[in-house]
């Protein structure tokens, strides 16, 4: 029987010729990651295991991203715990000033490559699946055991195939394809499944754009999101790969639990309304509602890569953001910050009246650098808008693509980008 991309990778990682959905396997991991929220628990659990060393120092990475730079003493303590452990163990550690959001940092630095089984203690770990890796979010205890043994237990997921025909139009971006998809299949539509994204619309996409889609596999309940490696993938990976890689492709006779087909040319820029990423409307519908806003956030592991910043800057260039609006721009990593500086994008944002901050997850999870008060409304390029996600439980977050976010900052309300960029 043919195998899907996810099954191919998992079969290789557990040393079997073939695996099928539902099989319980013990698989070898290529990379293990934790951040400043999840590492402290992972460290505590690791120490209980009574193991002296991690399975491979070069394959365990800690990234301080969520509450960093520390916002208070408690978060500074968490940073200290992970920093000391990282130094003691000799694992890969990215210090502030060289770090950023893990899901953008690690593929950029070549730690994740095609064919990898990568487990991270963060739910947005599926992001790296855009490289053709099996990239899976887990909890801290799983990560502790993986750090010690280099293995994880796993149930082979069934695969959901999502095909995007046609080409995206005008202001539609990869973010809109995934928001639209979550709106269609629901936030638990892909629970326990691997989401295999493919089709004509993906062919022209940069890796930046592709990562946005696999990132939000988490919001559909997916165990991972994957894309089949092509020339774009190879070009991205070749100069940065830190270890050997293998390109796996699904068999033509692979069996899919479900298949969804979309016509990308008809998908409009999409807005996920409060309080669920699956509560979607088109920008044309939302623009009619005349929703006034307090804050715009351009950042997060979903949309804070160079392409995202370029597009937002393009809309803001020569324009001021609306009075009484705060716009916070956070490039995802220090490398991206430097590149944005070199390209003059930071100048554009600051000239437009935006606050630009150093790399962090920040307001996406209501951590710091832009937490919302009761009743405030934020247009955000991030991935979640649950009650209380970005601050007060009665604050509202609207999830959009970067051009729509930039246009909202200029207009002071949610508008179609055409209204601003014309």
């Amino acid at each position, binding site marked *: 029987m043919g195998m899907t991309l996810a099954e191919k990778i998992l079969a290789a990682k557990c040393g079997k010729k073939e695996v099928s959905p539902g099989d319980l396997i013990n698989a070898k991991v290529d990379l293990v990651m934790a951040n400043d*929220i999840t590492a402290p628990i992972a460290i505590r659990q690791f120490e209980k295991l009574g193991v002296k060393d991690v399975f491979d120092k070069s394959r365990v990475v800690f990234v301080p991203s969520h509450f960093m730079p520390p916002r208070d003493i408690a978060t500074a303590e968490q940073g200290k715990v992970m920093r000391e452990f990282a130094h003691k163990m000799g694992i890969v550690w990215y210090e502030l000033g060289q770090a950023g959001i893990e899901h953008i940092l690690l593929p950029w630095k070549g730690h994740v490559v095609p064919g990898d089984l990568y487990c991270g203690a963060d739910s947005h770990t599926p992001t790296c699946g855009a490289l053709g890796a099996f990239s899976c979010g887990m909890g801290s205890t799983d990560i502790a*055991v993986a750090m010690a*043994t280099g293995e994880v237990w796993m149930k082979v997921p069934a695969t959901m195939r999502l095909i995007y025909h046609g080409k995206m139009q005008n202001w539609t971006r990869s973010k809109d394809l995934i928001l639209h998809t979550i709106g269609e299949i629901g936030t638990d539509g892909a*629970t326990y499944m691997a989401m295999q994204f493919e089709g004509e619309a993906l062919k022209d996409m940069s890796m930046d754009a592709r990562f946005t889609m696999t990132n939000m596999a988490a919001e559909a309940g997916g165990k991972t999101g994957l894309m089949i490696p092509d020339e774009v993938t190879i070009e991205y990976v070749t100069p940065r790969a830190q270890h050997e890689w293998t390109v796996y492709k699904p068999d033509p006779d692979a069996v899919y639990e479900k298949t969804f087909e979309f016509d990308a040319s008809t998908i409009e820029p999409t807005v996920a309304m409060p309080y669920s990423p699956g509560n979607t409307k088109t920008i044309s519908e939302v623009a009619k509602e005349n929703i006034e806003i307090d804050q715009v956030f351009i950042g997060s592991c979903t949309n804070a890569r160079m392409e995202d910043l370029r597009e937002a800057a393009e809309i803001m260039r020569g324009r001021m953001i609306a009075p009484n609006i705060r716009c916070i721009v956070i490039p995802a990593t220090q490398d991206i910050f430097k590149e944005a500086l070199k390209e003059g994008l930071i100048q554009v944002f600051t000239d437009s009246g935006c606050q630009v901050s150093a790399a962090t997850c920040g307001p996406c*999870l209501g951590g710091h650098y832009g937490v919302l008060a009761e009743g405030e409304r934020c247009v955000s390029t991030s991935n979640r808008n649950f009650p209380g996600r970005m601050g007060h439980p009665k604050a509202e977050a609207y999830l959009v693509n970067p051009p729509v976010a930039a246009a909202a900052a200029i207009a002071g309300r949610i508008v179609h980008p055409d209204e601003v960029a014309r």
Partner: protein
Amino acid sequence: MKGKAHKFGDHVDTDQIIPAAYLVTTDPKELAIHCMETPDPDFMKRVKDGDVMIAGIDFGCGSSREHAPIAIMGAGVSCVIAKSFARIFFRNSINLGLPVLESPEAADAIEQGDEIDVDLATGTIRNLTTEQTFTAKPFEPFMMDIIEAGGLVEYTKKKLAAKAAS
């Protein structure tokens, strides 16, 4: 395990179980202070040791934070019964030894404040208030091994010891 039921709706995500702002400790009791305060600000005032949480579909969706099951355990909750669970939350709970039972029928029928008795070995859920009985979806044997060992850490310790001895 026996306790009163505390009922919640569908899609209760981990930001609602324990908001990110409070993820600055790994101590179960400290985390429990803010457990479920978004959907039910009085939850912590009412909950007693051994009580049972009842939820709808996709309980625990969202972030991978293990603080969510830790906060629930810190609140004294002995078991969560839901129509369905999100993947990472389910896995985290098993790994920590928090019993999570899937039973759409029980989740529908049990009301706030009902007295519930759960037998994990058989997956039997009894509503002592209404005298109804339900059976939860059984755990796979492998997961039962983890639960019986007291969580993934203890389970792995045993495995590592066996490996070292052989």
